[in-house]
């Protein structure tokens, strides 16, 4: 059976005036039907750009230099504009970070929802579109949706807006949802509500979810698998429970140690020393080597590919013996 999504050796470059910059360097992962995957990393690690590349929407001057994005066996990196538009927002939906900005301020919720439906199905009648919109609003637990449909975005609170955005993403019953930091702009109680909602929806409709975030706690709560990104590459991936409980790559270890709850009461918070390299001067060898506590000579010379760690997940680190593995198999 073909996977829902298979990203293979994805290389995204940005052609800047000062030269070319590689934003992701050979990212690979797979997602089965109904699977939830967390894409974790610091700002600038290439998470969002990977998310956008799946629906082939990298804004200029970025472009997909090589690699494949196979959605149910179809390489979306190479299909026509028209074909990708029929998939975008229809079979793959995306949810953004800031619910205050992603709704059009001058159109009612109803208009925005029915317009999305009409874009993908021009023949649909107005009533039918309205009914679908009502259903989806009910699904995301918006009270009295009939009244809410004729209201403008400024009449909703932040959490409600994010629900509406999720409802819009659900309109066309997509097979995959890419959520780019969906809860970063919300406060903690609403965060949990929204994550529960997303999880519930994925389970009832057997939808795939790619959760892009820097929040490991959220990932641990929601996803089955995880891919940790650093400076444009996946440095560790595996089942979420194992990666969180027993991280293999020194970067993942650092990330988990840096969570405030990892340090004891009254102690200093842990942090990873140094900063992520800018994409223009990624160090040779392993890109994490200047910050790594276990750095060895070989790390400065040779880029370790993903290899099996001790607990069954894959880590790109010289600490583990090299072995020929298929990097897209998790």
């Amino acid at each position, binding site marked *: 059976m073909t996977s829902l999504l298979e990203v293979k050796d994805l290389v995204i470059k940005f052609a800047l005036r000062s030269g070319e910059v590689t934003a992701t360097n050979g990212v690979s992962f797979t997602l089965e039907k109904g699977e939830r995957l967390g894409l974790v990393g610091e700002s600038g690690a290439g998470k969002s750009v990977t998310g956008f590349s799946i*629906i082939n*929407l990298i804004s200029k001057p970025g472009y997909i230099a090589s690699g494949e994005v196979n959605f149910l066996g179809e390489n979306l990196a190479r299909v026509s504009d028209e074909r990708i*538009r*029929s*998939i*975008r*927002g*229809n079979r793959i*939906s*995306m949810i*953004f970070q*800031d619910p205050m*900005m*992603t*709704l*059009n*301020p*001058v*159109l009612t919720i109803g208009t925005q929802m029915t*317009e*999305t439906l009409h*874009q*993908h199905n021009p023949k649909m009648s107005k009533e039918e579109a309205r009914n679908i919109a009502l259903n989806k609003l009910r699904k995301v637990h918006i009270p009295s949706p009939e009244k809410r449909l*004729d209201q403008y975005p400024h009449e909703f609170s932040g959490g409600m807006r994010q629900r509406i*955005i999720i409802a*819009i993403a659900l309109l066309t019953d997509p097979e995959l949802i890419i959520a780019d930091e969906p809860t970063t702009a919300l406060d903690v109680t609403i965060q949990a509500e929204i994550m529960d909602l997303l999880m519930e929806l994925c389970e009832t409709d057997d939808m795939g979810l790619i959760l892009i975030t820097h929040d490991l706690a959220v990932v641990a709560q929601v996803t089955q698998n995880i891919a940790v990104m650093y400076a444009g590459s996946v440095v560790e991936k595996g089942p979420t429970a194992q990666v969180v409980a027993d991280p293999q790559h020194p970067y993942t270890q650092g990330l988990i140690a840096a969570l405030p709850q990892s340090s004891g009461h009254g102690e200093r918070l842990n942090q990873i020393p140094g900063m992520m390299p800018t994409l223009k001067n990624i160090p040779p060898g392993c890109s994490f080597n200047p910050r790594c506590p276990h750095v060895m000579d070989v790390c400065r010379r040779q880029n370790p590919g993903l290899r099996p760690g001790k607990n069954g997940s894959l880590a790109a680190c010289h600490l583990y013996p090299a072995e020929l593995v298929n990097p897209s198999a998790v």
Partner: protein
Amino acid sequence: MNRLDKFRESFLWYSFKRDKVAIASLIVLMVLFLAAIFAPLIAPYNPYDPEMIDIMNSEIPPAWEEEGVAEFLLGTDSQGRDMLSTMIYGMRISIIIGLGAVALQAILGVLIGLFAGYHGGRLDAFFMRAADVQLSFSYLMVAIFMSAILQAVVGVAKFGEIAIPFLVLVIGLSQWPQYARTVRASVLAERKKEYVEAARVAGFTSSRIILDQIFPNTLSPILVLSTIQVANAVMSEAALSFLGLGMPIDRPSLGSLINSGFELIFSGAWWITALPGLLLVILVLSINMLGDFLRDVFNPKLYKG
């Protein structure tokens, strides 16, 4: 909740109720527009009907002057036409040309501004340079050229028949850059916002993003600009007609009426110029006042003192 109730609760209505100048302007404007629309019913005479004109009645002063006649409330012009009727019909022509020209320039300018602003690059550069070139010509100069050529081609008599569409075209084509620049500026601000990105992610085509998503967000500057442009277009038409390049004397607009009385002003027949002039001032002033009010409402950053 229906639309009327919504409007009653809106900020626009709230501020309107509290702005006496705006209320007065709107009332004046409504009276003038209604008079223009129902001119054939309201005007006591039909100034286009030669049967009703008697040259013996020429240059009768308004009724309140010594030689005035009650029959002609505001007097007659040099051809014996009733001033009141001629002015109402003239205002009708001025308003038709004003609205027509603004509709033309708005359609052109808004479309160009939206697409140039959204797509950027060469398309944008081309249209904005075209706008610069266009604005560096005086529209009067262009109009003089075009009307001279047109009059030579179709003859002066025929020109009278096509004068209205011609004026709409000249004034409309010369002013589109105003709209294009305004709209482009707001599109540049809007297209960076996340809802545009979200629409792209939702699979919208770029023309649907432009027309359905961005256009509604640019409406308030368009509305404000439109009121000012209607006033400008009415003035432009009056200026062209005054110079003899616009409406012919047998179907006068306000501008050509002012012109026709101008020669007689020193012989004492002041009313032929002054009264249409006064009407023009009232019309333009009330439109501009209403435009000012709209600008204040839609742009709260511009609080007055």
